[in-house]
């Protein structure tokens, strides 16, 4: 029922497949740049420039000569130190090294580029190595090597900045060598790149200084002993340590002695001194071990920043946080309201959040983030996570870390649909089923829903499930190794409690077992053991061991695979839920439509918004998008979740999607559910000459049209644009929003379709044209109504009890009716009579006639019906001439010169008009100098006087909106052109609104309708002009200008439609032939858009590669 699947498929075929040749890499592979960034946790601006195999040599640090590090893989103890073999990568601003053999060359296979997502052996996705900001490098020297290999000695700023330029003693400086193991040529190229990067890096040194001034490590290392540190602080004018979170003021959670803070701090000081810190840190196995045992409080924030990569984003935009805050000061938003509600409810047990100091920080971080990511805004649980971060880091550090959390580590978790959260719950369940089948079976049997328990674990990173000190230990590893940690820990919890859990019978006991477990994490895991060492192992330690040893097999790629597998089901679920909720909340009016209709409406409505979004995407960012698509592919490969700007943008389940339909969307919507809203012009995909497109169609969509492939989507009918549709749109748009909401549309449709009561239907129509709601429709309105009637019925009175569509054949049959009048003709004459009667029974506008006015509406409808004689077209002058068609417009040569107020027009006027004008003087009602109006009762009476019109209002009009009663295919996929030739026809002859004789009967029919509309238009023009003259001379109300404007607009619309119709005719002949190559047509337009990059289908690959660099 729900159509998003098919929509998505459609979108895929629209975007992925051959329609747009260059949307993806030839092999559909993800962007190497994105994978590169993911591995080294780099900002989005970075791309891999060069890579080369290299050997990293670290001198044996003076402090750790006795280090217990044993030899490892890739690591050979040498006389002078430790060496790692790996890959060296260079991006614009970073030099990265990893022992993971990943490659980001174009030629590298996807597997080689994403190797880091696989088994990580606990070393984290980044492996051993470094991510070194180029601006942190002070000097690079080329070393003389015996074998003339390239060897570079790198010296960083460490040990210099702190002493403000004073040369530190050499033992303080961080220095290491890199031996390049490539050909001479490639080594040289790498070095050239590095030189350039270093030069550019100079610009960033200031940023670096600002950023590291917030890093506690700088303070920690600013001197080797306390006295030295203090003197250094004096030199720098720094007299207090950088902000390492609220914990510095309100104490860090936990008992510092039990946490062994001092020894941890000593170990870290040593590690950082030997291996660099923040922007220059080198990751060795000890680094990972130090993290596993738990970070010391004061360094925790900084290391989180480093391992998650948020440090590098901060390095690039050090002022983003404060700038965002000042930019949006005083602004309000829903997110801010929601944030305010929760500020007092975030880790309330921590003293820092019982004071304005802590709450202020929390407010600023959450608010600033809600501004830079309005799609997420604020989600409950973010307050808890950020509160936790703020215990250990400064506001701006927390701000950047939050953005990494939302963008990379917890994709989709906090989105408005929370699809990421739901998806990971599903993934978690499937992992439980896989790894603990017996437990899983038991849970299913006892009807216990696992996610009820596990959802908060993931959503708030265990922070409010476990005691804080343990949750932070989990976070330590999480930031280093990524989201898989959450799964490993969750599985371990269940594994450890497995036996107890097998006894449970309901949710209650399930939850209470886990609650008890969490409250006892500090206790011994083996209290009864004889072995003292074993007795000393806490339950939490046991948990970590089980998580990372027993579930070592759960890697990032496991998670990604599972996410891909469950993604669609989860999104469908969300969307079904959204649909149900949305339909339920459409308001009382909507109840007049059936549930099926509402369901259908929902699908169509969002379907169109979604498709339009897709198309806009394609048009707007074509080139951009290709890059994005492959980036997203990379994100998807690693995370299993499509990236933010993914091709599925607008999919309801993925988060905020458009909810308002603008006028163009509305036209498209109507074209999908009615036949009259489809334009008579050929749809663009049938247009063999894309260059013509823009000239054929001007007006609302001219801009889109000229710049793109069909703005209406390949294979869709192009919607018409008519005054009636604009009025309908205006009427439905009750709150004057930027567009119609689903509720507006449902309510609107409920009014026109939800009733079969002819009276309601008539007054609805009347009100559409009663612009100022005074119960009167003036001459202009009457003409517009008649135009609309012709417009709505130009494809026949569809929706009458007869089958849904008046087929070509039936039209023809009717046309050959012995009486000699087709349905169209008859309707035309009805409309003609309508105009006449309206004028006949209209009330004059003069104030002295007010009394008369009131008498008419009071007239009993039946009596007035009795008195009403249906005019005989023979005896009365038809306003719309049905006589033989003139072959061309004749110059107006009125026998009775029009009154002086009527401007002489040299433009073409048919003799019909001449006749009309000459008659006008005889009919006061038609005299534009006599303003007049009709009231609803008059209108009603006039309608009821005519069988066809009555039928139109009774059934045809309401039934012309097809909802679930008529499957969408009929109006959509078979653009109905009643008057089009069913067989490929002759090339069109240029003509001016007149059908060439060759078109025969169909041409005549066509002419009748188009002429009818034209005539109505002309009549209106004449009348208007007269009216305007009068008004002008009378120097009347200031409204004149406004009217003028509106009228001009109306004329514009009129002209448009005519030109469309003309173009239509010329092209219709070729329609059938062109349908077959429709795709080719749109392809070509697309290619034009690309500016010829992919001018030929065959060169598509080349184009893409060029783009990818």
């Amino acid at each position, binding site marked *: 029922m729900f159509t998003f699947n098919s929509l998505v498929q459609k979108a895929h075929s629209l975007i992925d497949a051959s329609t747009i040749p260059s949307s993806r890499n030839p092999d559909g592979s993800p962007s190497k740049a994105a994978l590169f960034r993911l591995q080294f946790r780099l900002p989005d601006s970075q791309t891999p420039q060069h890579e080369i195999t290299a050997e990293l040599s670290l001198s044996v640090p003076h402090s750790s000569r006795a280090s217990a590090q044993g030899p490892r893989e890739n690591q050979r103890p040498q006389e002078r130190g430790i060496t790692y073999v790996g890959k060296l990568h260079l991006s614009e601003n970073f030099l990265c090294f990893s022992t993971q053999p990943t490659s980001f060359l174009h030629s590298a296979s996807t597997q080689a580029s994403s190797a880091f997502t696989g088994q990580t052996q606990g070393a984290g996705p980044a492996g051993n190595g470094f991510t070194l900001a180029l601006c942190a490098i002070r000097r690079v020297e080329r070393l003389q090597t015996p074998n003339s290999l390239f060897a570079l000695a790198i010296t960083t700023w460490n040990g210099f900045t702190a002493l403000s330029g004073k040369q530190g003693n050499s033992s303080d400086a961080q220095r290491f060598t890199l031996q390049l193991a490539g050909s001479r040529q490639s080594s040289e190229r790498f070095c050239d790149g590095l030189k350039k990067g270093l030069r550019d890096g100079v610009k960033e040194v200031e940023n670096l200084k600002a950023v590291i001034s917030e890093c506690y490590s700088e303070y920690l290392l600013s001197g080797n002993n306390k006295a030295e540190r203090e003197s250094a602080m004096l030199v720098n004018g720094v007299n207090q340590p950088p902000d390492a979170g609220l914990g510095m003021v309100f104490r860090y959670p936990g008992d510092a002695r039990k946490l062994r803070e001092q020894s941890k701090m000593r170990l870290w000081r040593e590690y950082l001194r030997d291996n660099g810190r923040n922007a220059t840190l080198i990751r060795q196995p000890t680094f990972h071990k130090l993290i596993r045992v738990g970070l010391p409080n004061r360094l925790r924030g900084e290391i989180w920043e480093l391992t998650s990569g948020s440090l590098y984003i901060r390095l690039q935009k050090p002022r983003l946080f404060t700038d965002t805050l000042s930019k949006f000061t005083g602004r309000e938003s829903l997110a801010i309201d*929601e944030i305010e*509600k*929760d500020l*007092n*409810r*975030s*880790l*309330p047990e921590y003293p820092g959040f*019982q004071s304005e100091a802590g709450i202020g920080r929390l407010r600023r971080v959450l608010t600033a983030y809600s501004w830079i990511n309005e799609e997420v805004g604020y*989600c*409950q*649980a973010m*307050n*808890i996570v950020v509160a936790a971060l703020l215990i250990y880091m400064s506001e701006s550090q927390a701000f950047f870390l939050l953005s990494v959390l939302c963008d990379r580590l917890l994709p989709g978790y906090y*989105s*408005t*649909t*929370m699809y990421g959260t*739901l998806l990971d719950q599903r993934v978690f369940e499937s992992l439980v089923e896989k790894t603990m089948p017996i437990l899983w079976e038991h849970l299913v049997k006892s*009807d216990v*829903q696992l*996610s*009820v328990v596990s*959802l*908060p674990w993931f*959503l*708030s990173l265990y922070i*409010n499930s476990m005691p804080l000190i343990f949750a932070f230990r989990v976070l330590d590893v999480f930031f280093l190794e990524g989201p898989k940690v959450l799964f490993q820990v969750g599985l371990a919890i269940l594994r450890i409690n497995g036996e107890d859990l097998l006894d449970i019978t*309901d*949710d*209650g006991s399930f*939850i209470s077992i886990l609650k008890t477990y969490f409250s006892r994490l500090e206790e011994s895991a083996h209290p009864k053991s004889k072995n003292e060492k074993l007795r000393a192992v806490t339950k939490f330690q046991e948990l970590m061991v089980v998580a990372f040893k027993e579930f070592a097999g759960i890697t990032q790629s496991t998670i990604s695979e599972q996410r891909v597998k469950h993604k669609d089901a989860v999104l469908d*679920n*969300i969307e079904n*839920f*959204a649909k*149900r*909720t949305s339909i*339920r*909340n459409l308001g009382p009016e909507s109840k007049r439509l059936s549930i099926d209709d509402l369901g259908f409406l929902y699908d169509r409505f969002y379907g169109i918004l979604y498709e339009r979004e897709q198309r806009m995407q394609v048009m707007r960012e074509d080139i951009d998008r290709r890059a994005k698509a492959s980036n997203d592919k990379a994100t998807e490969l690693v995370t299993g979740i499509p990236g933010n700007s993914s091709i599925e943008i607008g999919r309801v389940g993925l988060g905020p999607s458009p909810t308002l339909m603008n006028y163009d969307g509305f036209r498209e919507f109507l074209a999908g559910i009615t036949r009259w809203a489809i334009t008579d012009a050929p749809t663009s995909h049938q247009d063999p000459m894309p260059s013509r497109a823009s000239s054929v169609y001007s007006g609302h969509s001219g801009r889109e049209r000229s710049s793109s492939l069909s703005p209406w989507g390949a294979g869709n009918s192009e919607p018409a644009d008519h005054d009636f549709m604009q009025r309908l749109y205006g009427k439905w748009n009750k709150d004057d929003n930027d567009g119609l909401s689903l509720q507006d549309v449902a309510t609107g449709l409920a009014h026109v379709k939800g009733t079969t009561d002819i009276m309601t239907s008539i007054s609805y129509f009347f009100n559409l044209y009663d612009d100022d709601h005074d119960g009167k429709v003036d001459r202009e309105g009457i003409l517009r109504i008649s135009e609309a009637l012709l417009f709505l019925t130009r494809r026949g009175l569809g929706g009458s009890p007869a089958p849904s569509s008046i087929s070509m054949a039936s039209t023809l049959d009717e046309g050959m009716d012995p009486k000699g009048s087709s349905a169209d003709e008859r309707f035309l004459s009805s409309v003609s009579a309508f105009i006449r009667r309206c004028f006949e029974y209209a009330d004059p506008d003069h104030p002295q006639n007010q009394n008369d006015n009131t008498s008419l509406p009071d007239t009993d409808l039946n009596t007035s019906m009795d008195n009403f004689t249906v005019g005989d077209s023979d005896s009365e002058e038809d306003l719309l001439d049905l006589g033989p068609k003139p072959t061309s417009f004749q110059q107006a040569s009125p026998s009775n010169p029009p009154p002086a107020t009527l401007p002489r027009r040299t433009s073409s006027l048919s003799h019909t008009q001449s006749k009309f004008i000459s008659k006008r003087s005889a009919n006061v009602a038609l005299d534009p100098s006599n303003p007049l109006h009709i009231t609803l009762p008059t209108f009603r009476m006039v309608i009821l006087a005519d069988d066809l019109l009555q039928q139109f209002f009774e059934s045809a009009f309401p039934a012309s909106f097809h909802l679930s009663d008529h499957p969408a295919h009929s109006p959509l996929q078979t653009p109905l052109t009643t008057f089009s030739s069913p067989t490929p026809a002759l090339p069109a002859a240029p003509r001016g609104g007149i059908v060439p004789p060759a078109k025969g009967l169909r041409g005549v029919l066509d002419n009748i309708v188009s002429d009818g509309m034209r005539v109505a238009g002309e009549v209106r023009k004449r009348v208007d002009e007269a009216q305007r003259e009068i008004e002008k001379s009378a120097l009347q109300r200031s409204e004149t200008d406004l009217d003028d404007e509106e009228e001009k607009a109306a004329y514009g619309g009129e002209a448009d439609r005519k030109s469309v119709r003309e173009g239509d005719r010329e092209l219709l002949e070729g329609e059938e032939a062109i349908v077959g190559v429709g795709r080719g047509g749109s392809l070509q337009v697309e290619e034009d858009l690309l500016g010829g990059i992919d001018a030929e289908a065959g060169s598509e690959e080349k184009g893409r590669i060029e783009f990818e660099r």
Partner: protein
Amino acid sequence: MADSAAAPPKPSSSVKLVLLGEAAVGKSSLVLRFVNNDFQENKEPTIGAAFLTQKSHLPHRTIKFEIWDTAGQERFASLAPMYYRNAQSALVVYDLTKPTSLVKAKHWVAELQRQANPGIVIALVGNKLDLTDENAAASGGASTSEGSDAEGAETPETSGDARKISTKEGRAYAEEEGLLFFETSAKTGVNVQEVFTAIANAIPETQMKGAKGPGAAGAGAGQTALGSERVNLNQRAEGAKEGCAC
């Protein structure tokens, strides 16, 4: 109050109850008041859902409430079906001082009526009564309050300081939809116990899941007294109105 009166051999059965309503209307606070007779000024928002149990002793039986307290923020709404699945009763809570919260409550009622167990007993609860004037008059001293019987003392139509939704409005809607209706304060405890008792009374014995008490079968009397479920619901709604302190 009822706790002390518990006599061992009464039949007992469990009832699944779910709390729904806009964020920060006081769902968790109501539960905390009911379960622990406690109130915390700064209660963390509920993430996903919380689960608690509490026994309620009625004259003829004991009912164990299995309470699912859900998160109120709009975006958590799609999780709700997971929690109201199989629920026999629901508390739909709004904040008497926040008009939008009643709109949200109505949405929840509609959703429950359509998606949840057909026989679900729904109570509409307007919370934070202590912030309105009539409370100051009537139950200012009733902070210990489990059984505080403020009946009839409060006259609704004098709009209190912070009150934005009149008793009349809430009750009219509840009657229209056949819901139990209460105005409560989790802070002072006014009417909290009553809500749960009324729900317990409104649930027919047949609807009880897995009666675990010794006399699970001996529930006949209660059942006849309660009559058929729909009718009962309406009766209860009437009863609630009278018993309710507003």
